[in-house]
């Protein structure tokens, strides 16, 4: 299991064996009888994050990446597992301690329209966290909000306007200012640019990078867009059906992807620099339902590198990738039965070559 | 009724009786309550059913036309009429009808049973049915209109147009069923409006129906009859609810076949 060598600087966030299961809407009677069904949105995920670091989480819709983010941010109650933040257990903090935690972990949401209350001015929205945590009041509060606005590239004159008066990119800047207001150590960014126009995405990504450099914030960056994740992340976790398929440094993942899912996913991205040949469609179908995941390896039903019975019978565990970039303490892990085979065997069948 | 027994014993006795179809005996006439209610239910159901039919047969076409010809003369006329219909109590419409039809051959008083001839039956219930049907129809018409307007701006209607279907098919084949889904739910809730209307309208037209029995027994403080009537109304409601649920599943396949495969 997770036997990461404790590095000298202990991680800011350590989440171990996180599970989040949602009950499926069923009738009152079956609930009473106890045959409740669950969507296993997140099903045993380990993730850790160091100060000032960005960890990207990628996967297709329904893979549990958003749920993972919200569980780590303690917006959702984890069903199982433990979360440590800043050397403190936060798995089931509540009340005042939870409120204190909210000051340290902030969230940026996907839809910059839906995440801002349409009945409040953006000034009020950004001021709210300052009020809640008693950080500033009166003129000082206003000063601070103006400062935050400038920091994210908005102007003082915007203060009294309503969210609908802004463009998508500006709204996302408001969302970032709100998250920044309490000077958090960690920001969970849940698809922060996927709802934005192409030309505006770059503005927001650069802004987030600059803020990180300035304030040493850590990001848990959740996205479906591999290119964006690659651009911003130091380390990357690839999720499939509520589990981590592969995890490692950005370089390891993108230069030497091991999991067939990672490889197929990278292959699917439409590229502007290279044309895909037509027979390259390697990911057939859609992910199975997380309320009824397949036995064995969750990916076996779509795997272009399917081995055989072992994939169906036994679920592969995350194991260290051997011979990866030479170093011993590499954090590159992958959950695939190919790890048990020889390199030659694998290369022989490789559909990606 | 054994009034000297404790309340809960009385209650249990009463409930036991109900399940056996025994609603007690009237204080006033000494008749069994169930018999009294069965005796007067026919005119009430006749008026209610015909009223609903009238409402639906006005509301559907008017609502659809009003939606399709939005902001055109047809829409304005339909809208004005609907708002007028929405704004009058049923029994008052009845009073107006009584005044208007006082000198015509259409009877403005009383009821003859369906067994005594269809024409006579119909002529006696047509005016009360119009009186209860108009407000009900007005509400339904507004619902149909707004639901239709909403549906006509849906993506799948645009798809239907992009397929080259003519506008009638777009409306009636692709739009209508979708537009009716929310209307049906409301039709059930509105049953309360209809029922209250029938009771009051019976008084205006001198129909000896359920409403008259009910009001009479309240004035006479004939408690067994009041209790029996309340139970009857509740049963009517539950029955109506079931019918609505049935129609709803019929027109909405998302209820019939739940979940993604």
């Amino acid at each position, binding site marked *: 299991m997770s036997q990461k060598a404790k590095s000298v600087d202990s991680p800011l966030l350590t989440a171990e064996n996180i599970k989040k299961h949602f009950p499926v809407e069923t009738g009152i009677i079956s609930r009473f009888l106890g045959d409740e069904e669950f969507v296993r949105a997140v099903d045993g995920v380990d993730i850790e994050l160091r100060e000032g670091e960005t960890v990207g989480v990628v996967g297709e819709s329904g893979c549990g990446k958003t749920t993972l983010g919200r569980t780590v941010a303690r917006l959702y109650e984890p069903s199982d597992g433990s979360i440590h933040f800043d050397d403190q257990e936060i798995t089931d903090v509540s009340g005042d301690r939870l409120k204190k935690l909210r000051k340290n972990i902030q969230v940026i*949401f996907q*839809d910059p329209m839906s*995440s801002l209350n349409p009945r409040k001015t953006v000034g009020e929205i950004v001021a*709210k966290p300052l009020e809640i945590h008693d950080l500033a009041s009166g003129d000082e509060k206003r000063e601070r909000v103006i400062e935050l606005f400038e920091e994210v590239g908005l102007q003082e004159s915007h203060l009294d306007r309503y969210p609908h008066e802004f463009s998508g990119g500006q709204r996302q800047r408001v969302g970032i200012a709100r998250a920044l207001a309490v000077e958090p150590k960690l920001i969970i960014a849940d698809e922060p640019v996927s709802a934005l126009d192409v030309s505006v995405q770059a503005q927001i990504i650069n802004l987030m990078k600059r803020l990180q450099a300035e304030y040493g914030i850590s990001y848990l960056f959740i996205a479906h867009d591999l290119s964006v994740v690659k651009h911003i992340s130091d380390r990357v976790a690839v999720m499939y059906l509520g589990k981590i398929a592969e995890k490692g440094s950005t370089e390891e993942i993108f230069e030497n992807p091991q999991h067939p899912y990672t490889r197929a996913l990278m292959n699917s991205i439409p590229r502007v620099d290279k044309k895909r040949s037509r027979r390259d469609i390697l990911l057939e179908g859609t992910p199975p339902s997380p309320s009824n995941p397949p036995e064995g390896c969750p990916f076996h039903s779509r795997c272009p590198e399917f081995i055989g019975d072992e994939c169906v019978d036994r679920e592969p565990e995350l194991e260290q990738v051997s011979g990866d970039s030479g170093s011993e303490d590499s954090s590159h892990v992958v959950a695939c039965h190919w790890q048990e085979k020889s390199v030659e065997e694998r290369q022989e069948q490789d559909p990606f070559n | 009724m054994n009034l000297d027994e404790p309340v809960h014993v009385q209650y249990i006795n009463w409930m036991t009786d109900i399940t056996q179809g025994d609603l007690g005996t009237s204080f006033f006439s000494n008749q069994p309550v169930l018999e009294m209610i069965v005796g007067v239910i026919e005119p009430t159901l006749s008026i209610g059913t015909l009223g609903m039919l009238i409402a639906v047969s006005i509301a559907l076409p008017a609502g659809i036309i009003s939606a399709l010809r939005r902001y055109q003369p047809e829409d304005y006329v339909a809208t004005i009429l609907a708002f007028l219909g929405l704004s009058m109590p049923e029994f008052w419409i009845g009073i107006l009808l009584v005044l208007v039809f006082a000198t015509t051959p259409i009877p403005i008083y009383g009821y003859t049973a369906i067994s005594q001839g269809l024409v006579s039956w119909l002529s006696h219930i047509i005016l009360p049915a119009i009186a209860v049907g108009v407000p009900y129809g007005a*509400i339904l018409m507004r619902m149909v209109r*707004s639901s239709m307007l909403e549906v006509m701006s849906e993506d799948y209607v645009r798809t239907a147009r992009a397929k080259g279907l003519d506008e009638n098919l777009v409306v009636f084949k692709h739009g209508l069923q979708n537009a009716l889904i929310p209307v049906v739910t409301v039709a059930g809730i509105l049953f309360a409006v209809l*029922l209250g209307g029938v009771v009051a309208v019976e008084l205006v037209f001198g129909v000896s129906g359920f409403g008259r029995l009910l009001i009479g027994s*309240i004035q006479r403080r004939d408690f067994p009859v009041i209790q029996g*009537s*309340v139970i009857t109304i509740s049963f009517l409601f539950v029955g109506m609810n079931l019918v609505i649920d049935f129609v709803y599943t019929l027109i909405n396949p998302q209820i019939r076949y739940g979940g993604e495969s």
Partner: protein
Amino acid sequence: MISRLINTVSRRLTGGSETHLFGIRSNLLERFSRILKRDRKAQVGLSIVAVVSLIAIFAPVIAPYDPMSQNFPVMQPPTFTGAHPLGTDSFGRDLLSRVVFGARLSLAVGLSAVAFGTLIGVPMGLYAGYYGGWVDDLLMRMVDTMWAFPALLIAILAVAIHGQSIWVPIFAIGFALIDDFARITRGEVLSIREEEYTLAAESIGMGKFKIMFEEILPNAVAPILVQYTVSTARAILTEATLSFLGIGVKITTPTWGSLLRQGRGFIQQAWWISIIPGLIIMITVLGINLFGDALRDAFDVKESGGT
């Protein structure tokens, strides 16, 4: 003139950055005044509502006689001028005075009933929608049960137990409205809860209660307001029906409904006793409905057909 009034009011209400009117802020009010400026329906509706409200408020000043005074010739037809412009009733009371005082009581009954339904229904729906789980199940089962109790039924029971009084229609109509308000509020809360700003509020450390009243309720106000107008219109009609049936207010209390009840026996001989109050009801309810429809347009609320 009215639109100018609304403009001034809305400017006053939204001028400062900290003004709230149930959370409806500049954009909603602006939209409403914009609709009011060009929509004839809205103008007529608001004018009627304003006039009837003024009549109700100033009834003692406007009514020429005491509505209870029986000192006049019996069943005098309306002349539209002179001593009894709307005629007199079967007890020789001045119909105009009774209609004017009727406005007071009918509106009071209608508004109180709706207030009753709102004050219980909205918090129920808010709570059920936001907390979900078994609380939601329980509350919604209660609301479902209430559904089977139309105002008529409750009025029957209330009169049977309590006898006629002005509280009977208020309670009966109000009680029957609870489920409408609860359902509409809950539905609205359920969709607002899906919006990320409620999650965002939680993420900055706002408490659940605060989120419910500060983030969710203001965004649910528009459909509730629309429902409020629809229900008020419906309540006035229901009051008339109940009183007409003799299961509402006492016959001596002059509401529009009880005036109609007095006319019941004389439809053929003295039509005006039934027709005039009915006409007044129609105009009033029409005004409220038109006003409500303008609100619906302004706030872009779907027709829910609430009763």
